[in-house]
């Protein structure tokens, strides 16, 4: 889509209701899982640029961090500024264009919410990836939320196709282009059905191939998707080890899965000095879930060790939203976490029963 079309689509009305619609879904934990995936990479030393930040929802979850946002829509940026008063800057910028001021400027460059689909051609997608790489500092991380067409719709498309009759050689199926209709404003006669026309949706393999031009390590992390009967799997693509110019070393591609989100329901261990003196002797030791130490993302392999029960922050650093306790969860989140077929569910029930 052309920039003006995108601005029209994400106008003032859309910006007003955006957070409620996409981050307030009572049944979707996607926002939560994505925020956790981000939280494993956001640490106090980070300098973070969120490309296509929209209303700045994810930025606003990490106050006190050096962070900045860029988006195409001024209405969305106004929301972002209001939500992030202490951010470095918010700038209206088309990610198809390079910004020399941002070269190597950020240790974490992220893009969530699939704004990359609002381009005209797959060549523009390539420019977008090139720009993300340019803006990532050497040693920095680039994080992109992606969904394969298969994840979203169940359309299984092959990426590499050996030649066909009539097309000898080989075929690479890079992207599927689709239009989506949006009836959320149908009751407003002057808006009616909105169309997101011809969104370019690269295959996951093509994303990996694009990032491999600029980075030497690609990690595709599948986020937990729950409740599984309502949601489709979402993935984040992490690109690290930015290539120096002319570097053609082979790429290292890792597919991994983030920990299941069940730990949202487990209360964190109370500090040692406040801990009740003893547990009953009779309790078997294996029934208490040990919380693994938090793994900071600075060390390279830590990123693809499945982290459970930890947000990845330093141990001394308080989480910005405070400890997550059961009573803080909404009813909907609780319902989303009611998964009695998981061992962890019963573990936590036992834990909670014993701690009473």
């Amino acid at each position: 889509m052309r920039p003006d079309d995108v601005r029209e689509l994400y106008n003032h009305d859309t910006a007003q209701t955006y957070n409620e619609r996409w981050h307030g879904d009572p049944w979707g934990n996607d926002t939560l899982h994505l925020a956790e995936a981000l939280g494993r990479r956001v640490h106090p030393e980070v300098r973070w640029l969120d490309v296509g930040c929209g209303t700045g929802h994810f930025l606003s979850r990490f106050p006190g961090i050096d962070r900045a946002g860029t988006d195409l829509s001024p209405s969305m940026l106004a929301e972002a500024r209001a939500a992030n008063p202490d951010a470095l800057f918010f700038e209206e910028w088309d990610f198809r264009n390079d910004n020399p001021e941002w070269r190597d400027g950020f240790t974490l460059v992220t893009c969530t919410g699939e704004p990359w689909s609002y381009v005209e051609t797959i060549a523009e997608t390539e420019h977008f990836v090139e720009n993300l790489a340019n803006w990532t500092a050497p040693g920095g991380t680039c994080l992109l939320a992606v969904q394969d067409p298969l994840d979203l719709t169940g359309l299984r498309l092959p990426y590499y196709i050996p030649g066909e009759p009539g097309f000898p050689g080989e075929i690479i199926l890079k992207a599927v282009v689709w239009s989506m209709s949006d009836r959320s404003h149908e009751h407003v006669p002057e808006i009616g059905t909105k169309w997101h026309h011809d969104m370019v949706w690269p295959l996951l393999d093509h994303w990996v191939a694009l990032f491999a031009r600029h980075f030497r390590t690609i990690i595709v992390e599948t986020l937990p998707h729950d409740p599984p009967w309502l949601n489709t799997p979402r993935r984040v693509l992490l690109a690290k080890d930015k290539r120096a110019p002319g570097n053609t070393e082979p790429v290292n591609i890792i597919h991994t899965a983030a920990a299941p989100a069940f730990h949202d329901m487990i209360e964190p261990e109370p500090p040692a000095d406040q801990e009740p003196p003893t547990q009953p002797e009779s309790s078997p030791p294996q029934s208490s879930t040990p919380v693994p130490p938090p793994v900071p993302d600075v060390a390279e392999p830590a990123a693809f060790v499945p982290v459970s029960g930890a947000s990845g922050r330093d141990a001394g650093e308080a989480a910005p939203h405070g400890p997550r306790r059961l009573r803080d969860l909404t009813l909907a989140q609780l319902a989303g976490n009611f998964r009695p077929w998981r061992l962890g569910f019963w573990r936590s029930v036992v834990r909670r029963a014993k701690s009473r």
Partner: protein
Amino acid sequence: MDRDEILSIYDPWYADTYDERFHGGDAWNANLAAYKVEVVGELLPPGGRWLDVGCGTGKHLSAHLAAVREGLDLSPSMVEKARAANPGVTIHEGSYLDPRPEWEGAWDLVTNLWLSYQFVDSLKVLEQAVANMASWVAPDGCLFMHVADCEDVARGVDLPWEDPETPVFGDSLFVTSVTWTWKESNGRTHHDLVAPQLQRMVNIVARDFEEVEVRRWPAIDLVSGRPKGVIGRKKRSKPLTLAEVGNAHPFTLVYPPRDHPGENDPWRPGDPVAEEQPHATGDASVSAALEQGLSELRGEIGQLGGGIGQLGGAVGRLGGDLGQLGGDLGLLRGEVGLLRGELSNLAGGLLPSGTGEQYDTLGVVHEQVWALRKDLADFSNAWAVDSSPPSLDGVATKRLAREILGRLNPFSRRFWRRVRRPSS
């Protein structure tokens, strides 16, 4: 792809070797070219004016000598070849995106015969190109384009046009095109070709034409698929916008006649007469179509015995397709004919050919039932109070089953017999 990229592919070497690679002895290409020329003859009035856009080496233009023929191509090398192959025919050099006011309404037939419409950056540019070509068509003329979509690029992957089950924004998702790159074995790479889905292409052509027909090629064998073309007839006095055309403009689906010399598919779908393409995308029609296809398949599996020997040769071409066949019912949509071929080949591979031996499915089922009964007997024997050896006669099995069911059934006395009353 921009102009320079296209010209770097279609250089003099490529033009010189083009005909031997794409108009050589290959049966698929020969069938493709022959039917194109046939359709052109069908659409062209006697002595009519025919413009071939993207004419390449002018192979197609060298037919229908009675017509007034002209060509248009971007590549100077290809234009040179076309001029040499068609003396006396004017071949223009230029792009289908260039405005040519002198051609407005001047041609009885405008054709685009080898997918050159896909050398565009986006669907918007493609719409411009089709609109441009349509503007050259005379008011009673027609437009004929050979098209390819995901089904042709990734053989056997049939993307639906509308997917109402993925309501990302609360409503339907329409697959409009796929972007593909073709790396030829000689190193030439056609980057980022835009292959619109058939329905999208129909919608685009329907902006300028009231009637749209989709023509399938004859099938040279059971596995190569049928290429397709889009024909626009009855030019509109004023082009519509895509919004006015709607999401799914109706089109007529036409197969070549059953006795066409190129037709080599005994189980061809469709009738010799044109059939209306159903457009309802509700679950009912899809499942009804699946049901029908499945029942046809069931009927034909029985007929396979005699024809198996003939089909043996095609087994090798199936390769890995059989793996996809497994659980993917999506493949069944529309391509029942292809699946029939694959199934028959599968049977051909399983059976020793020529023996005429029937594959007794019932026998396998009987074995399974027998094994199940045996398992059931063993299981119930372990539970049974008396330790009599398991016998498989009907009475004993019924008794054992009653024993088991009785123990599992809370409404029976056997169930409660074992429940210990709490002792005070």
